[in-house]
């Protein structure tokens, strides 16, 4: 939660706060897959008293926190290829069984990063479509197609200040109409049949501030004045 001294802290949630906010919405007993990056941090913020089971698509259910330094096992890793641990009650399985869990709608919630989300719930998070890019999709398309509830954690805008929440994605899609809720640094935003609806604002952020940084029209949710 430290910021560089060089520039004033922008209003809104930090990466950790976004992860913590998302963690609040994951009920105890859920089977959850966390994407690489900020989504991984969600596991640190599970509220007291909730037991949540983490799935990593490379063949582990019951993924635990990273091991102590020096205790890493190169054959016990997560989908981001980082060393992890296995909790009591864990199980190992092969890739076809792992994606049967995903495609068969057995995983309850998946939290992913995003390049763009459209107001129809389309997600783009695997390719900029640039001609010299090496395309790489991993398990993202399987997750959004198979997991009933897809949460996105993302900065509201790109590093260049471009909105990531848009009317229509310009990047190649990961899936159509798949996103349920977005946790950005500025707000919690639901996908509804009428498009984006702001459910909650970060401290010091007002609706207009979020609207100005969004590529399409936002609606106010019931929780907002």
């Amino acid at each position: 939660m430290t910021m560089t001294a060089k520039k004033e802290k922008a209003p809104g949630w930090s990466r950790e706060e976004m992860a913590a906010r998302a963690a609040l919405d994951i009920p105890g007993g859920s089977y959850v897959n966390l994407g690489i990056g900020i989504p991984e941090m969600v596991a640190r913020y599970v509220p007291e008293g909730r037991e949540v089971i983490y799935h990593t698509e490379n063949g582990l259910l019951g993924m635990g926190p990273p091991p102590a330094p020096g205790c890493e096992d190169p054959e016990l890793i997560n989908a981001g290829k980082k060393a992890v641990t296995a909790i009591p009650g864990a199980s190992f399985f092969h890739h076809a069984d792992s994606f049967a869990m995903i495609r068969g709608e057995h995983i309850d919630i998946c939290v992913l990063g995003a390049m763009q989300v459209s107001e129809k719930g389309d997600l783009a998070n695997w390719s900029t479509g640039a001609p010299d890019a090496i395309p790489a999709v991993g398990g993202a398309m399987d997750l959004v197609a198979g997991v009933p509830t897809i949460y996105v954690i993302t900065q509201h805008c790109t590093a260049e200040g471009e909105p990531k929440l848009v009317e229509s994605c310009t990047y190649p899609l990961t899936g159509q109409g798949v996103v349920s809720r977005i946790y950005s640094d500025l707000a919690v935003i639901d996908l509804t049949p009428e498009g984006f609806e702001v459910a909650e604002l970060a401290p010091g952020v007002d609706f207009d501030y979020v609207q100005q940084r969004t590529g399409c029209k936002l609606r106010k949710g019931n929780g907002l004045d």
Partner: protein
Amino acid sequence: MIDKRIGSPAAAVADIFDGATVLIGGFGEAGSPIELIHALIDQGAGNLTVVNNNTGSGHVGLAALIENGQVAKMICSYPRTTNSKVFPELYRSGKIELELVPQGTLAERIRAGGAGIPAFYTATSVGTPLAEGKEIRAFGGREYVMEYGLRADFALIKAQCADRHGNLTYNKTARNFAPIMAMAAKTTIVQASSIVELGEIDPEVVVTPGIFVNRVVLVANPAQESRLVAEGRTYP
């Protein structure tokens, strides 16, 4: 805390509703969850579609469920065995429907249902009466029939060992359909011969990960169907 243990077979099957599709594990008596089936007889839900490789023996277990008039339709591969009298009689008198599916296609349909595959192609049954009316399609010069994934409301299965997360191991050929049925049901109900502490089942040897299981009930000394049949027992 995640705790899928439940106190009794009766409590485990309490919400099975009229008209439900129920996968029932077992190949003959091996792996048959007989205490759960008997609880379902006590519970009384009717008009069920039941998926099992067979149709039970004697007048206990699956045969008793059928005899009790609770099953409107059977989906199975081999509805007759030595001691199978109940199903054949009802079938001949038109009182029960039968969908006959080759055993491997049945297994693959259940696995597909559990794995989110709505349909697939298999060479099994091409050119036979069981492919009639089904879509035939050639791949690489060979003909295949399209079959649909099979999902169900409930699965009743028997395991050897379970923990509170629902991780399961099985005993020998009693494993048969149970792991794939656990995958294909909205609610999977397990009778386990033992329940151990979390972590006692080596993660390498878990056969059914807990994600596929909803309820676990301890039945420490399950009845042996063939013994009940030999003794001429009936249920209820």
